[in-house]
């Protein structure tokens, strides 16, 4: 069994603003294992940042218990902070210091030895070594994000909380940052990542949790969630006479639903036992087939579906 690094037990947190009572996090229970990259996905205001704030010890939950390395985030945050770090895509950087000086300050705060070597390594890993004498507050947003990551890896943390680390970055910078995150996983670090970028989550995360209105509405490996929420195989056929195909296959037992337009047909199939038979039937239908492919749902489809379903509820 994988050792749990981060545990949330029934966490709830509400705020009162302008006479309104808002439940930001509602009975969230979650476990993240050692060496895992966990993606927390959800729309703005879903409760992601509130959860991050509770884990960092910035917020005290109304109910429940948040633990990192088996220690209470509310009462033992100082001990926890020695072994974790955090970088937010929205964080600013203090003025007046160059990159090296600021990292040196954080090395002193963490009481780290070999400061020069650590700073050099962190700056080289994030590709900022040649910018070490520049002030990070003057960096472009891409370099600024990379600088915050270099700050976050200074103490060689076992757990990293990354709050939308690639927000607002160009494709190249975001790609480099994702490579860095993958490298950190290879080093055995546990990472909790919040993002709005579904492709990023699909590429990086071992497991994901979808959060809406403060509740985790789905949690698990993407493949498992896909099976759970998209139980049907989907074949999309582009052809000139979709009616011909529909006529042949509509009697088959495994066909659950058929969506039809003038030149397209989307078939929802329960299980894969009849797949070969269905393909044969389509090919032999002489419906003027232009293309035919199995549709694999992406994380974005899952996200859209769950957010929509939840809204209807």
């Amino acid at each position, binding site marked *: 069994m994988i050792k749990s690094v981060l545990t949330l037990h029934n966490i709830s947190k509400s705020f009162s603003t302008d006479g309104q009572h808002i439940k930001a996090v509602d009975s969230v229970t979650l476990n993240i294992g050692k060496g895992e990259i966990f993606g927390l996905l959800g729309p703005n205001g879903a409760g992601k*940042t509130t959860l*991050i704030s509770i884990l960092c010890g910035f917020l*005290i939950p109304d109910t429940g218990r948040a633990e990192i390395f088996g220690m209470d985030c509310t009462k033992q945050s100082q001990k926890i902070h020695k072994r974790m770090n955090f970088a937010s895509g929205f*964080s*600013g950087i203090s003025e007046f*210091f160059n990159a090296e000086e600021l990292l040196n300050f954080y090395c*002193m705060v963490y009481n780290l030895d070999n400061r020069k070597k650590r700073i050099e390594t962190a700056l080289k890993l994030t590709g900022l070594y040649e910018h070490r004498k520049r002030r990070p507050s003057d960096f472009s947003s891409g370099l600024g994000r990379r600088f915050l990551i270099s700050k976050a890896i200074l103490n060689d943390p076992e757990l990293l*909380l990354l709050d939308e680390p690639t927000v607002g970055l160009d494709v190249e910078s975001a790609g480099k940052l994702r490579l860095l995150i993958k490298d950190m996983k290879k080093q055995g670090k546990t990472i909790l990542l919040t993002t709005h970028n579904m492709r990023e989550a699909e590429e990086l995360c071992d497991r994901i949790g979808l959060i809406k209105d403060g509740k985790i509405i789905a949690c698990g490996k993407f493949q498992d969630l896909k099976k759970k929420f998209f139980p049907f195989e989907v074949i999309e056929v582009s052809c000139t006479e979709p009616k011909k195909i529909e006529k042949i296959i509509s009697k088959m037992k495994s066909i659950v639903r058929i969506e039809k337009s003038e030149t397209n047909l989307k078939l929802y199939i329960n299980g894969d036992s009849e797949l070969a038979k269905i393909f044969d039937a389509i090919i032999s239908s002489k419906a003027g087939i232009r293309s035919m492919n199995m549709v694999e749902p992406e994380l974005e489809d899952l996200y859209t579906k769950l957010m929509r379903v939840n809204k209807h509820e």
Partner: protein
Amino acid sequence: MNETIQQIMAVLYRNIIWSYRSPFRLADVFIWPLLLLFTFTFFLLLVGYDVQYIGIIVLAVIAWKGMFFVTFEISTIFVEEHWDDSLPNLLVSPITAFTLAMGGAITGLLKSLLVLIICLAVSFLAYGFVLTDLLTFAIGIFFIFLSSFSIGFALFGLACCYDKRNIFTLGFVLPEVLGLLCGPYFNVEQVFPQWFVSIVNLFPMTHAFNVIKSVFGLAQPDYFMLIITTVIWLGLSIVIHHTFYDMGRRKGTLVKVG
């Protein structure tokens, strides 16, 4: 190195770089204290020069400014990091509120030391003033430091809960106003009505300023009240700090992430 000491050194390192590169902070040490000193001494020269009165003005300016520096520096790191949106980076580190405050207080003390050197040098060159009873003055300054730490630490707690801009302003105003009310160069009994004297006697700074004035025989220090009020103020500041720090963590006003 011991972790707490290293963290205090980190705050000092940050503040020294910041002070060195910020004209605003340099003016704090090199311009405003001298301006205040000469404002008083020029007037004294007009109404009747006496080196004893020049001396009390010099020491009052040093102590008054020292009080401001210590109070202000304790709460200001927190507020400055907030304005730079960098507070989460700092608070996610193992640094504690106490080490942050101590780093700020020592920064204030170092600034006071610079002001002391500048003011003593200038007053010697301009008016021939020499501080003879350094020990008594040091005792007074030490208690000014402790009482200013109390005010700063309480303000730091309030900044965790309430609008940081307002607390920053309070960090400017409070030490200056309290400094004046506690009689840095005059005896409160000679200036204020009795009911108000009773109130300011509850402030440790009043007694600390009396210690400083006693260098010239201008006041009778009450060491018992000095120690008692200092201890009470320190205790109260710790309670206020922790109460509002926790309240900030409950209300979500400690730090804004994202």
